[in-house]
């Protein structure tokens, strides 16, 4: 039986399958459907310093093989997470990784400082790529200097594993990846959603209250794979691959393109048990192709 363990910057994941921020709640909603301890890790919903109500309804539009969302980081703030949510889920035997966001560098720093205090949280995902908030968010992730600045600032106050989540809405993602690597990121995760809109032709209105939203799902997989492959060839730090992963084959494609682990996003909405199926599917693949370890898949794609 193939070894599914993956070591990412010194942190061991029991398998390469984790769930993407914003698509898995705090995990609790999935408790009904499978044993969360099976997961490699769990990226919880994006949090900010202060509570946020998020954007107005409608926040969702279905598109061809995908969906747009404009949730806009609705959350009760980092303190609520630490005091109320985390105690309820910390017993889980899987890595729980907060996803943090801010409007200013100071916001990011403060959230990171608070989370740094919590011993059993092994890592942080710095979201500099959310397309659904007015201030900050994606702006940090689409300019190289600001991506570097926020990464550096958080690096100074956070001394565990720092994962920076990159925006795909850029001309050259390798430039940003190299920038945050230089600024001290231990890993990058990509991609966040592509900026898109949906139009209601009958009503002659945009479907989302915010007009633009973030595109996710299988529609974006080719773009996500391309960016993972580009970044894999540009940086040395390990990559979490994200974007349209619906099954084990998709997950393996991301690993072959250079991801050390993957995050399952939108697929959770359609099949809340999909992550377990992906874990099992990777195991089957290793066996079928006579690999000893999932590590052998990373970047193993021939050009």
């Amino acid at each position, binding site marked *: 039986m193939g070894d599914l363990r993956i070591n990412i910057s010194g942190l061991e994941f029991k398998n390469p399958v984790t769930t993407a921020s914003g698509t898995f*709640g705090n995990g609790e909603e999935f408790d009904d459907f499978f044993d969360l301890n099976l997961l490699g890790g769990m990226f919880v919903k994006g949090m900010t310093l202060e509570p946020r109500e998020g954007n107005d309804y409608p*926040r*969702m539009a*279905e598109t061809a093989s995908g969906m747009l969302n404009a949730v806009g980081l*609705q959350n009760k703030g980092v303190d609520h997470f630490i005091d109320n949510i985390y105690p309820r889920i910390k017993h889980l035997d899987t890595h729980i990784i907060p996803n943090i966001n801010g409007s200013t560098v100071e916001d990011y720093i403060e959230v990171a400082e608070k989370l740094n205090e919590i011993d059993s949280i092994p890592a942080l995902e710095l979201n500099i790529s959310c397309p659904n908030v007015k201030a900050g968010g994606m702006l940090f992730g689409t300019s190289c200097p600001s991506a570097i600045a926020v990464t550096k600032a958080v690096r100074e106050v956070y001394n565990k594993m720092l994962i920076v989540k990159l925006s795909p809405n850029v001309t050259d993602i390798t430039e940003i990846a190299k920038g945050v690597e230089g600024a001290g990121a231990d890993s990058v995760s990509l991609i966040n959603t592509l900026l898109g809109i949906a139009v209601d032709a009958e009503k002659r209105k945009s479907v989302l209250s915010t007009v633009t939203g973030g595109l996710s799902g299988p529609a974006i997989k080719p773009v996500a794979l391309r960016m993972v492959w580009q970044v894999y060839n540009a940086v040395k730090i390990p990559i979490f691959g994200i974007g349209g992963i619906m099954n084990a084959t998709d997950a393996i494609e991301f690993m072959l393109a250079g991801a050390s682990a993957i995050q399952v996003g*939108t697929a959770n909405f*359609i099949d*809340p048990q999909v992550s377990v199926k992906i874990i099992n599917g990777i195991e089957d693949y290793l066996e079928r192709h006579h690999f000893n370890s999932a590590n052998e898949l990373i970047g193993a794609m021939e050009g």
Partner: protein
Amino acid sequence: MAKIIKDHEVIEVRFPVSDSYIISLRSPVEIPAVLPGNFAEIQIENSSDVFLRRPFSILDVDYENRIISFLIKIIGKGTKKLGEIRRGDKVSLIYPLGNSFSLPEPGKRVLIVGGGSGIAPFVQLGRILKVNSNDVTFLIGGKSKKDILLTALFSEFGEVLSTTEDGSMGEKGFVTDHSVFKSENLPFDRIYSCGPDAMMKAVGRISKQNEIDCEVSLENMMACGFGACLCCITETVEGNKRVCKEGPVFNINYLKWEI
């Protein structure tokens, strides 16, 4: 509440009228307890443009034979496709989801106002209210006679009134034009409503004016249906709440409705 996600086998798809159908499916496992107001997320496969599941209220459950049914109105791609499914096909269902209608004290008088496919949750609600010894009146509205469905079923649980816009059945007009609302003191202790937004708001307005407790079941665009995505929010006095999890049933006083 225990939830299941299982492939169900299609037993029957029946069209009482051309634009709505009742689909019955058999569960491979015991059906968990379903409360009135609960819904299911149905996956409509093999449709190139239906990516997400679709939420539908649970019409009825036959626990003994493990059969669950839905009343579905064709309004777009997914509902059309699902209606073309055949006996023996498999459909993945997640349920029971969402909260449910709260029950009044035994003996209280209840008005149930439904429109369109919004009447689906009221079969189970009506049955329970009858068991609970409530005096139930159903008021069903539609464009015309063919839109007034399930009246035979409802009449097992209480009186059935109706309105149609073209006057082809019951009183002519919208549900809120019905004479039942004309009396000074509305003889109801509780009102439940489900249907188009405008209808629920109009019913809510009347309830408020008459200081009658009113619960509505909201429709909404949902991506997951089980609380994971935060796409389906509605504004409440306590901030944004998930319609799929904290709802779909809300007391109108809890909603930030301008009515």
